[in-house]
């Protein structure tokens, strides 16, 4: 038991060598708990942990830690996301302490989308520290029991530390090194950006494996099933750092009317099957945005059920 850094379910699953499966859930744009609970029910039993986004795309939603607590009540394990855009180091550390005290054990440390993309573009951003420094701060809080200023913490938060990696961001040649840097800063697991270009991802993973990074941390491959040709087009052209190959758009188009979503799910399942075999990939992170009700089916068809219970 004491071998664990945090003792979270996600950490136990990954450490056991089981192919992990995480999901995602966006908190409501309001205090509507019923919506959140409904989403949670779809994901329950299908995933090892659920990412709870933090004002994703800079749109105001219920706070990530508050929504995470509701997930705990619903019997799910949250992966509490935190971005550097909205909080300085004081607010971050106090939120981490509160989250931990309430039972949150996983965190995903992110820079955050710029506020220009969201619904309060006139806001001021913070960026007191960056995602690398956030990772390192959480690690020092956990392992050294110290605040960022070096002061001692009375009962340090034991958090399993996650970070993101975008294999398709530019400059491409630097991406594996940036991943290495995040691992050195303290990341225990990585969730990647949504993958559509499998060729590029295979190359990325080969380099990651050659560098031995997969032995120092768990890498979860990111998947977002395409619901429509429009969505694929939008992702291809409007989301910076996303790579959607033309061949995929063609394939979705070719599925014909009413069958595009099924084709999107088929592609996602094929991806999961390949990731299971791919060296260095420890699991899959499924970001089925506003499609939580399809997760049980995807999990079932991809052979991800039942999820393991590890004590």
């Amino acid at each position: 038991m004491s071998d664990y850094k945090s003792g979270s379910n996600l950490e136990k699953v990954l450490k056991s060598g089981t192919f992990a499966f995480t999901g995602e859930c966006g908190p409501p744009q309001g205090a509507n708990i019923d919506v959140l609970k409904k989403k949670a029910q779809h994901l329950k039993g299908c995933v090892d942990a659920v990412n709870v986004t933090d004002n994703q795309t800079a749109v105001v939603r219920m706070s990530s830690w508050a929504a995470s607590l509701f997930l705990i009540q619903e019997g799910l394990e949250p992966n509490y996301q935190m971005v550097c855009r909205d909080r300085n180091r004081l607010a971050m550390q106090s939120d981490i302490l509160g989250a931990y005290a309430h039972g949150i054990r996983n965190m995903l440390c992110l820079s955050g989308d710029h506020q220009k993309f969201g619904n309060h573009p006139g806001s001021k951003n913070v960026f007191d520290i960056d995602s690398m420094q956030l990772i390192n701060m959480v690690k020092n809080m956990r392992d050294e029991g110290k605040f960022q200023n070096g002061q001692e913490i009375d009962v340090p938060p034991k958090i399993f530390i996650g970070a993101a990696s975008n294999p398709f961001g530019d400059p491409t040649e630097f991406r594996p090194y940036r991943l290495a840097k995040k691992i050195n800063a303290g990341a225990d697991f990585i969730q990647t950006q949504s993958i559509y270009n499998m060729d590029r991802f295979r190359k990325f993973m080969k380099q990651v494996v050659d560098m031995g990074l997969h032995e120092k941390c768990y890498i979860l491959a990111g998947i977002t099933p395409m619901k429509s040709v429009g969505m694929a087009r939008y992702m291809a052209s409007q989301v910076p750092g996303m790579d959607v190959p033309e061949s995929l758009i063609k394939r979705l188009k070719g599925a014909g009317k009413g069958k595009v979503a099924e084709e999107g799910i088929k592609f996602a399942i094929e991806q999961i099957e390949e990731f299971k075999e791919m060296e260095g990939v420890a699991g899959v992170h499924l970001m089925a945005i506003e499609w939580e009700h399809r997760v049980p089916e995807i999990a079932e068809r991809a052979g991800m059920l039942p999820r393991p219970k590890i004590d």
Partner: protein
Amino acid sequence: MIVAEPKPIKEILEMVRDYKKILVVGCKGCVTVCNVGGAKEVGILASTLRIAARKDNREIEVGEHTLERQCDPEYVDELKDIIDKYDAVISIACGVGPQFLSERYPEKRIFPGVNTKFMGGAVEHGIWAERCAGCGTCVIHYFGGLCPIARCSKSLMNGPCGGSAGGKCEVSKDIDCVWDMIVKKLMKEGRLDDLLKFRPPKDWTTARDGGPRRLVREELVK
């Protein structure tokens, strides 16, 4: 230099609508170089004010004066003999100018005639870009001489975010991703080790976060 742009003329006219004697004060420093607040622009703004008044059948008197620098009490003093003739002053220096004028001539109404934008320079004729955010502890030598604090939209210290695409920042295609430049430059120079070094959280006390700043150079204080 400090880069500024003219305020919309409508806004200026609105500001000084109730005044009959207006002095427009320019500055021969940065704002002359970026073509917004020098003697030439003083002349243009003064004529515009006169024409606008004539159109509305209003009598006004507009004076013109350009100081060596508005951020220096010695030069600001120069206005003492003429400023009494006017009841409003429009400064078209950077944001420092109208404040120095207000401090020296507290009884006058002083208006800003430009919007002060940033510290930067001209990258092309007619195009200026930001280079420094005045953080108070310069560290650009870690980053190949490029400043991620001022030039990365998220002031990242440890590498590009996931939104960097094709050399451009996720915020806009008009913004170059400075991290793309830093990475490419250092990799070309074989300085991958420098890129992999963890840069700890910055101490922002020397930046604006430490409160309004003041600099004392003992050896220069009389």
